[in-house]
């Protein structure tokens, strides 16, 4: 029996999410992780259905709040491996603020963002990564907004592990996941994906033609300026950098605040009374409940 299989995955035929499902499951196997050691925190969107299909602990949360929810899990119990899964809407639209701030905190979360450039779950509206001028269901005469650049946003926000994956290369994707899960700090993997149902402007074939593997360019880099330059130079040629772009060890939030263990639920009444008497001159009398 496949220990990580909860249910047969159901997405549209040709959906990029199948690749992510395969790659993530296999990354768990190859890292010898046990399902009970992992918590997958999901937001809203097609990709986030992964919590129903991969058998681990899971929090299926609300739209845009994957990162703060995952942060709560990680801070209360640092021994858990915490994986966040979002789509481009969840991560870069409604939840974009949290991305910047989670990056500043460097909480040890592996954040997987499935970027297909469309709101698929609501059936085909433009997303923050939809290219400008795209003809979309909600903008028949062309989408007038520039797209977010997830890689640059992550780099300048201080994410300590920045990678881009591609659903057409599951083997490499799995390796990025493994590396990200082992990274001591906050990691973001933006995954170039497709929506064969609602975003016909982006195909696997077209993406594949534009891929540049950054490992051939000397990545992962440790200097953020070099990483920004690498991303920009590849993107200026209309191509997509794929691979682990940037990786740096910095103190994690748990390390900085000294929260390295599960928060102990025990109550030390003597100490609490001591605080009250010291700071307020107030005695606390506690009786046992009947």
């Amino acid at each position, binding site marked *: 029996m496949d220990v990580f299989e909860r249910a047969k995955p159901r997405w549209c035929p040709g959906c990029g999410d199948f690749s992510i499902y395969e790659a993530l499951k296999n990354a768990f196997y190859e890292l010898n992780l046990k399902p*009970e050691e992992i918590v997958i925190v999901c937001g809203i969107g097609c990709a986030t259905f992964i919590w129903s299909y991969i058998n681990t602990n899971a929090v299926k949360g609300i739209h845009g709040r994957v*990162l703060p929810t995952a942060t709560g899990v990680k801070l209360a119990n640092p021994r858990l491996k915490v994986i966040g899964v979002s789509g481009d809407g969840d991560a870069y639209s409604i939840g974009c*603020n949290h991305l910047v701030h989670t990056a500043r905190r460097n909480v040890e979360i592996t954040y997987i963002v499935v970027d297909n450039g469309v709101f698929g779950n609501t059936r085909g509206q433009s997303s923050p990564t939809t290219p400008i001028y795209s003809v979309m269901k909600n903008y028949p005469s062309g989408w007038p907004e520039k797209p977010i650049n997830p890689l640059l946003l992550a780099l300048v926000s201080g994410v300590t592990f920045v990678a881009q994956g591609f659903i057409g290369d599951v083997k490499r994707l799995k390796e990025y996941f493994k590396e990200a899960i082992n990274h001591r700090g906050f990691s973001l993997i933006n995954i170039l994906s497709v929506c064969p149902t609602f975003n016909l402007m982006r195909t696997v074939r077209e993406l594949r033609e534009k891929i540049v593997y950054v490992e051939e360019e000397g990545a992962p880099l440790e200097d953020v300026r070099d990483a920004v330059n690498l991303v920009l130079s590849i993107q200026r040629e209309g191509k997509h950098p794929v691979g682990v772009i940037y990786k740096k060890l910095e103190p994690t939030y748990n390390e900085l605040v000294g929260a390295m263990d599960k928060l102990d639920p025990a109550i030390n009444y003597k100490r609490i009374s001591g605080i009250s008497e010291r700071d307020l001159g107030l005695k606390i009398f506690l009786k046992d409940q009947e």
Partner: protein
Amino acid sequence: MSLGIFLRECLRSVYEVVLKDVSVRIAGLTGQGIEFATEVIVGACALKGLNVYTFRWFPTIVRGGSTYSEIRISDVEISAPPDKIDVLAVLDESGVKDVDDLLLRDSIILIDESLSIPQYNCRVFRQPLKKTSSEAKSRPNIVVVGFISGLLGLGYNSVSIVLEKISKKDLLESNLRGVEAGYKLFIESGLESFDLPSLSASKSIVQGSDMVALGALSAGCKFFAGYPITPSTSIMEKIMKWFPEVGGLAVQVEDELSAISMIIGASYAGARSMTATSGPGLSLMVEGIGFAAMAEIPIVVVDVQRVGPSTGMPTAYEQGDIDLATHPSHGDVPRIVLAPSTIEEYYSMTMLAFELADRYRCPVILLLDQVYVMNYFTLDKLEASRTSGRKNVSSVGGGLLQVFPSYSGSADGIPSPPLDGFLVVASSVEHDVKGLGTQDGKIHVDMSIKRLRKLGELEESPVGWEVLGDAEACEAVVSIGSCRGAVEEALEKIRKSSRMMLHIPLKQLWPLPRMLEETLKNVEKIYVIEQNASGQLLNLVSSKLPKTAELRSIRKFDGCPFRPVEIYRGLVYDGGG
């Protein structure tokens, strides 16, 4: 003579004969050290074992906005603002407002000789406060403290003890000089001292924020996330100061959406968790509250109410979040809303909130009042029942790796990962007993009923239920939160005229106690007392009030707490908006 003045004179004669009840107002600008002056006077009173109730009016402007602080001092317990001002100290004329009804003929106005204020029918003492303070190389607020402590009879000793405790080191000398100079001014003024007595044991000075933070600590709360917002910030600051000593972790985050999500994540992972906010923050948190209710993750949300709607008057007092707190989020959301009515209950009900959240696995909202959270009060001690803290299901024996049936209601405790042999799934989408997602209408019916049924127990046996006064009375008052003190003081006087009334300080707002109807079934007239414009408490409880009773609403919404005389007037004039 108007009825208001008549009543005041009556109250005054009562006060003077029966007890020592002296009130001081210090008026001026923010940045003139009015809060510090308040702290010193309150501290000196507490040392003498006197009871204190304080109230502060202040603007959002950090420096230069008009502000005042009221200190009511008594030798018996008090929990309401004063009906009169005996001493009005003026550091800036713009701080003098809304005093017409409060100044008596004997009241003393202490004002710097350089300032001018409208004429009041009371005793005005022009003093060289500023000149004296610069001669003493001190500050006018400290000179005022010296003058007032002489006037009240607090004693130089008590004041200097307090100053030594709370002054910044480099300011202590100048503060002591200022107090001495102020005291000398008082002696020279020839005024008679109020001669407040010294009672046996000294008291502690607390703010409601201390009580909430201590309550969280005592309940075993180990995780806090919050975003600064007036008037709840002080709760966050105190928790951040104390948590490291008890193995807790407190985080200031980017916004309220993050705060509520983070405490849900932490609670899922096994820690009793809390956030504290105010109206605008609560508005942002409602989606998360619905999530916690759906996923049955216990959380405690503290809401310190301020004047709304929208940004409103951030530093002023109102009870306008009753609607929002009792009806947060979309869908059929099981929730518990508690509104403590005394400063002691700010401690005990905070503890209780965590117990209820864990027991019923739903969000608990603590609806608090700005006046209690931000002002200073005296207390002898705190009493509460011990709690056991979060009971996590950590081991249920081996077995095949499967998802724990968290939603079957069978677990004695809350499952949190990693769980021996099991996985834990929490979900915002409708789910089966294991938490796995479903679109099955029948399961939704079962789960909805299951979630809502949880609160039946609290409906039948509410927490904090109290009926004050004469249970046989044919008139009743239902009040909320900090209105309690002023209501009780007004009722004390009403009862003297042989008018019998019972008083329910309603503390469990949701689910509404069934006892409300039962207790009031023979009552002919019910006054609902609250501090908001639309009568939110009245609307909330009216479904549970007997249809035969006449309903009256007494409301106030000018940002200041009810004074007892205002409620007395309302009851005598028979309600009215």
